[in-house]
C-alpha cells in the first residue's frame, strides 16, 4: 500500500513558500505532512495533502509545476525505539531509502514515517513480508 505525495520545485527566494501555502490554503487543502529539502539555489517541497488532485491544480494555477509520486507511510507507536525497529526491518530487506520524514497524529497518538524507495513493487512485497504496517491515503 502506498500514499500519494506531491513534490514542488521551488526557487530559493524569500516568499516562495508562502505563495505555495497560500495557493493550497485558498483552495481549502489541508497539508498533513511536509518536508523541505534544500540546496543552495533551490528546494523541493514534499507534501502529503488532503486532496492530491485538487492541490496539483491549485499549484498549477499559481504557476508551480507539481509532480505526484507514490511513497510509503508506515504506522508505528509513538514511543522510544519504535522508529529503529522499523528501520531495522527496512534494512533487512536490503532496499535503499531515498528520503524520509515523519509526523505524529494527535488523534491516534501514533507516528507515521513517510519514506521513498525507488522500486515500489518489489519494495511493497518485501516490506509486507517483514510485517511492516503500511497505510493508504484514506487514513
Amino acid at each position: 500500500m502506498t500514499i500519494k505525495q506531491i513534490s514542488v520545485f521551488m526557487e530559493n527566494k524569500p516568499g516562495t513558500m508562502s505563495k505555495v501555502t497560500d495557493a493550497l490554503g485558498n483552495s481549502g487543502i489541508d497539508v498533513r505532512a511536509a518536508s523541505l529539502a534544500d540546496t543552495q539555489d533551490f528546494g523541493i517541497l514534499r507534501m502529503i495533502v488532503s486532496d492530491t488532485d485538487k492541490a496539483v491544480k491549485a499549484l498549477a494555477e499559481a504557476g508551480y509545476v507539481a509532480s505526484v509520486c507514490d511513497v510509503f507511510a508506515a504506522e508505528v507507536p509513538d514511543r522510544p525505539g519504535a522508529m529503529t525497529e522499523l528501520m531495522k526491518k527496512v534494512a533487512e530487506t536490503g532496499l535503499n531509502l531515498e528520503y524520509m520524514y515523519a509526523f505524529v497524529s494527535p488523534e491516534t497518538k501514533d507516528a507515521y514515517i513517510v519514506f521513498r524507495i525507488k522500486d515500489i513493487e518489489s519494495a511493497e512485497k518485501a516490506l509486507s513480508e517483514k510485517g511492516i504496517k503500511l497505510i493508504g491515503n484514506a487514513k
Partner: protein
Amino acid sequence: MKAPKTHNIYNPEAECMPREQLRELQSKRLAETVKREYENVPVYRERMDAKGIKPGDIKSVDDLKYLPFTNKTDLRDEFPFGLLAVPKREIVRIQGSSGTTGKPIVSGYTENDVEVWTEMVARALVAAGGTADDIIQVCYGYGLFTGGLGAHQGATRIGAMTVPMSSGNTQRQILMMKELGSTMLCCTPSYATYLGETIREMGLDPKKDIRLKSGVFGAEPWTEEMRQRLEQLLDIDACDIYGLTEIAGPGVAFECLEKRGMHVNEDHVIAEIIDPVTEEQLPYGCSGELVFTTITKEGMPMLRYRTHDICKLDATPCACGRTTVRMGRITGRTDDMLVIRGVNVFPSQIESVLVSVKGVAPFYQLVVDRVHSTDSIEVQVELDEKMFSDTVADFEKIRNEIGEKIKSVVGISAKVTLVGAKTLPRSEGKAKRVIDNRKL
C-alpha cells in the same frame, strides 16, 4: 496540421535561374548600382575616391571585394536622408528600427523598392506552402518595424486572406486564429512558441481546434531544436525568414519546405561572407560575417553592408529547384559576442547546449557580472514543464550536466541556476537573453 510537402515557386524565372546567368545579371546590376551611388551619395563617392576606385572599375561580382563597407553607424551618422540616392519626392515609404538606444535608423523606399520587397516576402510565403487559399495571420508589430507591413504586403500579394493582428494580446490572437481558421502564421519564433504554449494552457488542441499548417518565423535567431519544438507544439511546418531594414526587411532570404537554409533573393542582393577581423572575403562554406550589397534598390542602396550576423553560405543545389545560394542559421552576432574572462561567448552556444539536455526548456537568461575584477556568468535555465522529480539528485544531475557541457562547448565555467517552468520573461518581440551588469 502540416500540409504535404510541395515546392511551389512564386517567380521561377528569377528563383531558378542558372547560376551563370544569375551572375551576369548580378554583375550588370552591381555596375549600375555603384554608378548611381557614386553619382548621388556623397559618402559613397568620398569612400570610393579614397580607395581610388571609379564606378567604371566595377564590372562584375568579382570586383565587389574592392568596394568599401557600409556600417550601421553610417545610417546613424547620415540620419535621416544622407544616404538617399534619389530626390526625397521619389520616396514613398520610411521604415526603421525601434532605436531603443540613441538615434533610430531609417531607410527610404521608392515605389519600386516597396514592390521588390513585397515580392521577396511573397516568394517566402509561397516557399512555405502559401497560396491564395490561405488565411495568413500576421502578429509582427505594424509600424516602422518592417516585420508587420512586410509580411502583410507579401501575404496580400499572393492573394491570401491577410489578418493584420499586429503584436500582443495573446488571448485575442488565439481566439482569431481559432475562429477564422488561420492556416499560416507570421511572427517571431519565440512568440510562436508562446502562442503554442498558451493554446495548450487554454485547453485547446492544436490538432483539432487550430488549423495552422505552416509559419514563417524571423526577426530573431533560433535553433533547429527550437524549430522541432515549435513544429510539435503547433503541428506545423516552421520556416525561417531573414531580413533587415537596411536591405529591405523580411524576405531578403527565406527557407523552402526542405528547411536546409534560407534562399537569398540573389536577383536583388549579393551576399558575401567576410572575416570580421581582417575583412577579407571568404569562400562559400566558411563561417563568417554576412555582408549584403543591394543591386536593385533605388531609395537607399547599400554597398557591402555589414550585418554583424555570423553564418555560412551554401550554393549546392536544393531539392526545391531554386538555384539561389542558401544562408545557414545565424550562429551568433559579432556585436552580441560576450567576452567573459577573455573567452568569446555567443549566447547561441549556450542555447545549443540547453536543447541537448533533457528536463529543461530552451528558455534561458545569461546574467554577466564582474565581482572583484573577475567576470562571472550565470545561466538561468527554465525547467521543462514535463520535468517531474521528487529528488534533489535528479535536479542536481541536470544542473551538473549543463555546467559540464557549457564548459566543454564554450570553454568557461558558468554558474547554472534552475528556475521554475515559465518563470523567465517571455517577450513579444525579440527575446532579451543577456543581462550584462558589468560596469566597464
